[in-house]
Each structure stands twice: as structure tokens, then as C-alpha cells.
């Protein structure tokens, strides 16, 4: 008898420890498209950093951090491996990019990340205390898409926040944009949405309500909330790219806001009846940043300059439908039609990241006030 009692009490103690170790859902624009093989686009060599980057001192190790999965694999094949071969740098990788980790590293003075791929809500002046200013004597700022190169960050890939729909659920009807996302009478089924106040929810509500893409900011939050109220009970919120891909692929929702790489994966990798509507897309980007205080600052700047050169910037697009940010860079022919930047038209919108970051608290409060009521 007593042994059972002892066992029980030991188990209780053990279980408390187990329960303390919960997991966290990640929110990263990663996709899982195929590694299609295509010839590299050759560009005439000019003897500069873009084609002949300087050799790194022996033993140089750079820690590159991104969002893992097929996304980081594409970056590895497109950038890290060729750059390592050219310069002798050894790359160490981490797949858990997180603004919070950058903050923790910088505040504790233990900076071990050198180059970090982050989302569009990070790397602005608000984060100046955490980041090194980029070296624009090396980076060709004039070739980067206007607005996508800032003091502390430069966009490395572009993607679209788009509307994806399940063709089975809509029985042949094609939604033309966000206005149809809000029309549950004509287009039945639930609607997927990223559970994040700065992820596009207010923007798409305003686009649906007839606001011109160029007039989005400052966001008219009460108007957006009123529009969102009309379909609140039909909305399903997702917290990670994998979740959004699964929801639209299975038909749990008939339409969703999604990152275009995830929409591509739902169709081409999972072979689900999913299509992307490029009208009303929001073109945005992931950015390279360098955490403040890294001992490898100069080597990190060299890599960032090299990876954003017109010769190299589009290399990951061979493996994943995320496009270049260098306007002179030619995307791979196999994915060029699937890229956000190839589908820009007069309905295309852009995030005003600076406005979003300055108003993050107000956005979050309005979002939660609407959502939890």
C-alpha cells in the first residue's frame, strides 16, 4: 500500500514539472514548396563585393537565423552555401528567429546571433537600441524596392499577404478580392485570419470596405471594426503559417488571409484545391537585421550586402515562391509567376510599417477589444 502512495506523490511532483514545459506556437512566413531545379541566371562579372566578396579571416563563423523549414532551406541553398564557398565563412544556423530573443540577447550582453531574418514589424527606429545600423557603403540601397531599406534593416525577400480560397468549398465561384471575403451570403463557409493585430486584419477590412490601397494609413480603426463585425462569427483565427495552410487545404475555411508561400504549398505540395487571388494583395517583406553588439558586425554586413545584390538576391526563388527585393534582380523562371512582386497591380497595397509600430498599442487594444467581446 505505502509504495503506491509514495508513487502517487512522486508522480504528482513529476507531473507538475511536465506541465511547466509547454510549447509555443510560432508565427513565421514559412512555406514548403519543392526544390525545383533550374539553371542559375548568369550575370556578367564585375569585380566587386557582389561577384567576388572578400575572403573572410580564417575561422570566421557567422550565425544566421531565420524561420526554419523550406524557407530557411531555400535561403541556405540560395545564399549561405554559395557565400560560404566564395568567402570561407562557416555558417551556424538557428531556425527560431524571434524579436524577443534579439531583445534578450542584447539586454543581457550575450549576443550570439549575427544575421537575423525578421518580419516587417521589427527593425524600425523603435528598435534602435537593439540593432546595428546597416552599412550602406556596401549595400546598394538605390537598387532595393523603395521603402524596403531602412537604417537598421534591409528587405531580403518579398512576399504577399493574400486571399486564398478553397475551390471545392466555393464550387467554381472565384472571389475577386477582400470584398468577397466579407460576403458570406454569396461565398459560403468560414474565413481564416491571422490572429495578430498588425498582421493585416484591419487593412483587409478597409480594402473590402472600399478604401483605396494608397489611402489606407492612418488606419480608420472604427470603420475596420464595423466591417469586421459583419463576419465575426464566421472567422477562424490561426497562429502559425502551418495552421493557415492546413485550414484552407482541408476546407475548414473556404477563404483565408495567408502568406503566398503557404498558399502555394497548400496547392502544390499538399495537392489541395487551393487558389490564390492576387487582387488586393499586401506586398511585404522579411528583413535582415544585425543585433547590436555582435563581434562579427563587419562580416555580417558583407554577407547582407552580397545577398541583396542584383546577382544574388533572387537565388532563393529557385526553391520557394518568395521574390527578390533588389529591383534589378531576375527571379527564377520556374516560380516567377507565383511571386508577390510579379503580381503587383493597381489593387496592390503596402504596409506602412512605421505607422503600425508607432500605433502598436492602439492597434492591439482595438483588436482585442473587438475580438474578445
Amino acid at each position, binding site marked *: 500500500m505505502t509504495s503506491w502512495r509514495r508513487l502517487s506523490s512522486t508522480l504528482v511532483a513529476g507531473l507538475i514539472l511536465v506541465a511547466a514545459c509547454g510549447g*509555443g506556437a510560432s508565427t513565421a512566413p514559412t512555406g514548403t514548396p519543392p526544390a525545383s531545379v533550374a539553371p542559375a541566371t548568369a550575370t556578367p562579372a564585375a569585380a566587386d563585393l557582389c561577384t567576388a566578396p572578400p575572403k573572410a579571416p580564417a575561422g570566421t563563423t557567422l550565425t544566421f537565423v531565420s524561420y526554419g523549414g523550406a524557407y530557411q532551406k531555400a535561403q541556405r541553398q540560395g545564399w549561405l552555401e554559395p557565400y560560404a564557398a566564395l568567402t570561407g565563412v562557416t555558417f551556424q544556423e538557428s531556425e527560431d528567429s524571434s524579436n524577443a530573443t534579439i531583445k534578450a540577447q542584447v539586454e543581457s550582453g550575450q549576443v550570439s546571433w549575427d544575421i537575423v531574418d525578421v518580419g516587417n514589424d521589427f527593425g524600425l527606429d523603435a528598435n534602435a537600441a537593439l540593432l546595428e545600423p546597416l552599412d550602406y557603403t556596401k549595400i546598394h540601397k538605390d537598387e532595393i524596392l523603395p521603402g524596403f531599406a531602412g537604417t537598421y534593416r534591409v528587405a531580403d525577400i518579398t512576399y504577399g499577404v493574400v486571399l486564398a480560397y478553397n475551390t471545392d468549398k466555393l464550387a467554381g465561384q472565384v472571389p475577386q478580392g477582400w470584398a468577397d471575403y466579407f460576403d458570406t451570403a454569396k461565398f459560403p463557409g468560414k474565413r481564416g485570419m491571422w*490572429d495578430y493585430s498588425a498582421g493585416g486584419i484591419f487593412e483587409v477590412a478597409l480594402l473590402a470596405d472600399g478604401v483605396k490601397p494608397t489611402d489606407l494609413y492612418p488606419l480608420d480603426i472604427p470603420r475596420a471594426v464595423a466591417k469586421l463585425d459583419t463576419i465575426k462569427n464566421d472567422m477562424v483565427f490561426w497562429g502559425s503559417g502551418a495552421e493557415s495552410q492546413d485550414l484552407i487545404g482541408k476546407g475548414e475555411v473556404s477563404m483565408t488571409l495567408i502568406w503566398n508561400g503557404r498558399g502555394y504549398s497548400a496547392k502544390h505540395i499538399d495537392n489541395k484545391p487551393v487558389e490564390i487571388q492576387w487582387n488586393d494583395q499586401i506586398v511585404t517583406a522579411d528583413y535582415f537585421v544585425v543585433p547590436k553588439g555582435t563581434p562579427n558586425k563587419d562580416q555580417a554586413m558583407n554577407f547582407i550586402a552580397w545577398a541583396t545584390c542584383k546577382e544574388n538576391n533572387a537565388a532563393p526563388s529557385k526553391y520557394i515562391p518568395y521574390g527578390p527585393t533588389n529591383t534589378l534582380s531576375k527571379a527564377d523562371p520556374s516560380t516567377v509567376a507565383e511571386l508577390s512582386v510579379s503580381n503587383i497591380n493597381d489593387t496592390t497595397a503596402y504596409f506602412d510599417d512605421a505607422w503600425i509600430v508607432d500605433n502598436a498599442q492602439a492597434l*492591439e487594444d482595438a483588436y482585442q477589444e473587438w475580438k*474578445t467581446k
Partner: protein
Amino acid sequence: MRQARLTAERSGRRLGGGPIINRWALLAVPAIVFLIAFFLAPLVAVSLRSVTEFPKPTTDIFANYERFAASASNVRVLANTFWVAVLSTVVCLALGYPYAYLMNIVRPRIAGLLLIAVLLPFWSSLLVRTYAWQVILRDTGIINTFLLDMHWVEEPLPLIRTTLGVMLGMSQILLPFMVLPLYASMRRIDPELTKAAANLGARPFTAFRRVFLPLSMPGVLAGSLLVFVLALGFYITPALLGSPKDTMISQFIASAVQQRLDWGIASTMGVILLALALIVLFVASRFVRLRDVYGSLEES
């Protein structure tokens, strides 16, 4: 065990063996150092952060607390967090008490099997189990697909994105924390007592209600407090199985830490949650001696 203790007391080891006990107490030093370094110090750091880190410079050290109170959704979600925790406790108690009672009256070997059955889900991760619930409960999930295919329903039943879904997911995870303390306390009840009650003319139910149930109360309280406090911190389960109305405060904390880098407000929410949990424990201690409650766990 009782015999062993008596022997020990008679031989005077307990009473006269001061130095021996002290030397053994050194074994607790690593645990104490661990608690100070990884529990107490971070707790102090988080509390300090809540009155020192602000998104916009201010001299008002309670600015974060004022920001918290100014937002209606914070208060609403905090209240909901306690409501969900209470609900989970009630559900676990309703499921766990009869189960522990059954474990108590069957032969030890069967009791062992029942124990394993309740612990089995613990051997896979919380995240995996929550996703499994999604696969079962959602509109295109196992249950609804079956019901729709059989034409027993026209529309999918609202199983996921409901409080019901949250309760299923949470009680499956929390049930062992209820069953084990209950079982431990029931084992301590002398079975002769209910027999004696029957001998004196009590019907089985009366004997249970007037003798067994009161004696099992330390287990009920221990399990309830354990489940309640653990439930307060949940966030993955309500996020994946609940509706927006089932949002819990930990989801807000996670979002403030990871997405908005607003660690000041995140610390503030953590401190408020901790303070309210302590108040609940304090109120509970008015009605029951906590030492009795947690003593029921260590008794062997």
C-alpha cells in the same frame, strides 16, 4: 511505516539526533540554490520590470498597471481566465472523484492499471494532444465528417472554437492532477470506519456522505487547488480549441512578449495573475489549513 517511525522515535534518533538531521539537510542546498536562482530571482526581475520598463518614457512607476486597467479587454480576459480555471476544476473534480474512488476500492493491481490509464496521455506532449483534439473536433474533423456522411446532421456540430472544446482539451491534461491527490487522500481513510458506520445502521450512501466524503476533503482541496492554479496559466489549449471569447491572459502575455516586445506590460500581467492566484490561496487558507491540503500529498 508507522511501525518504523515509532521505532525511530523510541531509539531517540528524532529527538536527540540534531547534528545528523543538519548534515542531511545539506542535501537540500542544491534545491534551495536552484529555487533562488531560477525562480525567486526571475520573479523579482519580472516584478521590477513591471515598474521600470515602459514603451514611452514616464515618471509614473505604475504606468503599466494603469495601461492594463485602462483596457477593457484586459480586464475581461483576466476575468475569463479565472472563470475557465474554475470551470476546469469543477469538470476535473466531477470526473476525477468517482475515478479515484474506484481506484481506492479495487485490488491494487487493478488500481495500478487505472493509474496508468489516467497517466498515459502524459507521455505525449501537450501540443501534440491539443492538435489531436483539433483533428477530432473541427468542422472537417473525425466526428463531424462521420455525422455528415451518415446524414445525421446537416451542418457540422459546433465542437471546436467553443468553451466545450477548451474544457475537453484542458480536463484531459489536468485530470491526473486531480486524481492523484484524491487517490492519495482516499488511501489514508481507514476502511473500517465506513464499515463501523454501516454497523451502526447507516445506509451506504449515508456512510459515504457522513464518513468517507468528509475524510477525503483534504484530497479534494489539494486536487482542486492544483488544477485551478495550473489552469490559470494555460494558453495553447484555449488558443487552438476555443473561440475568441475563451481567450486567457497567458495568450496576451505571450503576444506582448513575442510580437510587440512590450515586456513591461507582459511583466505587469504576470504580476497581476500571480497576485490574484495568491489571493485565492489566501482565501482558501481561511477555510482550510493549507498544510493539511499539501500534507496529504507528502504523507506516505
